[in-house]
């Protein structure tokens, strides 16, 4: 280590200096270097690319267009459709997931014999690969042979088969239903952890005072899990906004542009049209929109770290 230093005192001082000052940075170096190379460099590259008119496999034709791609966004009707879809997509999916998750958590928080089993089984949707989920629901939604239409016709809720994913008015809601199914276990599990942190004595005191179950829920349960709801909700907004794999496999953004969300539009532009310049500029714009939620979430989490 320190060959040239002979006196034990000096060596000790050096090693202390090493361990207390430099060591944390040395320990962090591998992780930081790897993330800089595989995350931040590509990210910077993406911002650069978004200023270019770049069609991949025609790299020689690429030229600097400044904010040209961003200007093009505003007059692109598909961009506005995708933006609106993204808002509906997040605005419906997250509350639905949260509502169903809350209901599940409250039920799972009660005493009953097979509680452990129920908790494990409810998590299954969360563990499945999103491709499997998407294909599975495509099979369920299938207009000719899908089981959903069979059931609904059998119960006479609908008269004729509904083309769930082929009808532009219905498709996005069908996908939202799928994502709600996929995501509610996450909320259930997070909220359950929050519920178990509320002391039982509070409920006992309330029921002695004669508070109804509903009032107990509103005045004890909800305030008790509010922090969990906020954190999980923000996390989920970010996650749902980003998750495009389910849509991509279920409809590929169609019919028409009916199920395009912003990240999916960026991905499709780049993947199918190989229009990397424009695709990246959509991705960057989307990231900026999402930034507000990310900032909120980061602020919350870093406050926890302060402790």
């Amino acid at each position: 280590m320190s060959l040239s230093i002979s006196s034990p005192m000096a060596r000790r001082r050096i090693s202390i200096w090493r361990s207390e000052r430099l060591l944390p940075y040395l320990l962090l170096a591998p992780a930081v270097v790897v993330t800089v190379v595989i995350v931040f460099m590509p990210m910077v590259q993406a911002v650069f690319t978004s200023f270019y008119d770049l069609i991949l496999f025609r790299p020689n034709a690429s030229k600097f267009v400044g904010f040209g791609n961003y200007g093009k966004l505003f007059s692109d009707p598909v961009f506005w459709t995708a933006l609106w879809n993204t808002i509906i997509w997040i605005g419906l999916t997250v509350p639905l997931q949260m509502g169903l998750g809350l209901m599940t958590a409250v039920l799972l928080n009660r005493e009953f014999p097979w509680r452990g089993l129920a908790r494990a089984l409810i998590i299954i949707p969360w563990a499945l690969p999103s491709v499997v989920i998407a294909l599975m629901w495509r099979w369920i939604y299938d207009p000719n042979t899908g089981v959903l239409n069979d059931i609904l016709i059998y119960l006479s809720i609908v008269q004729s088969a509904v083309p769930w994913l082929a009808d532009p008015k219905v498709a996005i809601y069908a996908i939202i239903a799928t994502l709600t199914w996929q995501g509610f276990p996450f909320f259930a599990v997070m909220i359950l952890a929050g519920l178990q942190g509320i002391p039982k004595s509070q409920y006992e005191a309330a029921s002695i005072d004669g508070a109804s179950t509903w009032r107990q829920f509103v005045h004890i349960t909800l305030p008790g899990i509010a922090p969990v709801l906020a954190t999980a909700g923000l996390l989920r907004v970010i996650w749902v906004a980003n998750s495009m794999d389910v849509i991509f496999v279920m409809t590929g953004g169609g019919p028409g542009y009916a199920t395009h969300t912003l990240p999916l539009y960026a991905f499709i532009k780049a993947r199918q049209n190989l229009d990397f310049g424009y695709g990246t500029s959509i991705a960057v714009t989307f990231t900026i929109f999402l930034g507000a939620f990310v900032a909120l979430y980061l602020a919350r989490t870093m406050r926890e770290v302060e402790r």
Partner: protein
Amino acid sequence: MNKQTTVRRIITTDLPVLVIVLFAMAPFAWMILTSLTPTATLNATGVALSPIGWSLDNYFRLIEQTSFLKNMLDSLIIACGTVVVGLIVSVTAAYAFSRFRFRGRKLLMLQFLLINMFPIVLLILPLFVLMRRSSLLDTHFGLILANATVAIPFAVWMLTSYIGAIPKSLDEAAMTDGCSRLTALRKVVLPLTMPGIISTGIYIFITAWNEYLYALTLGGRNVRPVTVAIQTLIGEYQIEWGLLAAGAVVGAMPATILFLLVQRRLIGGLTQGAVKG
């Protein structure tokens, strides 16, 4: 009186829970039933509901006629590689975060949290360009690197909270006994964190195994993980739901079983830390 409360409990708790459990399980159960129905039956009368009509025909076809086993191997290599890369660089970083107070600590922690929030689409496009240039496209290593973008920040945060739960006095005691910091990390902290490291590793494995978009974009003919392979089972002219369902069931098995095995410990860690679902 007691009987009455049991009946009440069944109506207000057991039944609603049962409905939710059925809702959560039904789609996958339907997939399993579909995979057990031979194609001829599926086309003629639909999914076979009774065991009389079941056969493993689709599974045999999956193994014999497609490259599914090879795709499973690809997924296994990538998932294990991601676990190794993710854990190795994260353990020391997490130790630094939980044991040292140094300048830039908060900023660096924030950085790792931030990475997890980035839209994958913003990363996937430039990664494709970079990997094409360095001919990493369609290799296991390329996909391991791509998956590490998710695994490393996740592992750093999980492990920081796990190591943080181990009393500092333990490694300080080891150091007064003459151990260096690194020896204390290796001999004292690591063994105690092992359960946390294992569940973090398993979670990385699951996410890497289930990952789809990177696999689709950065994989190719040579390296095709199961998630992409399942989708290619869609026939050219008509969707072969039986075969597809068999692929989906087999492809989902490893991650689902692992998840059920470690769910208790995993959920403890997930609910403490800041984690992407």
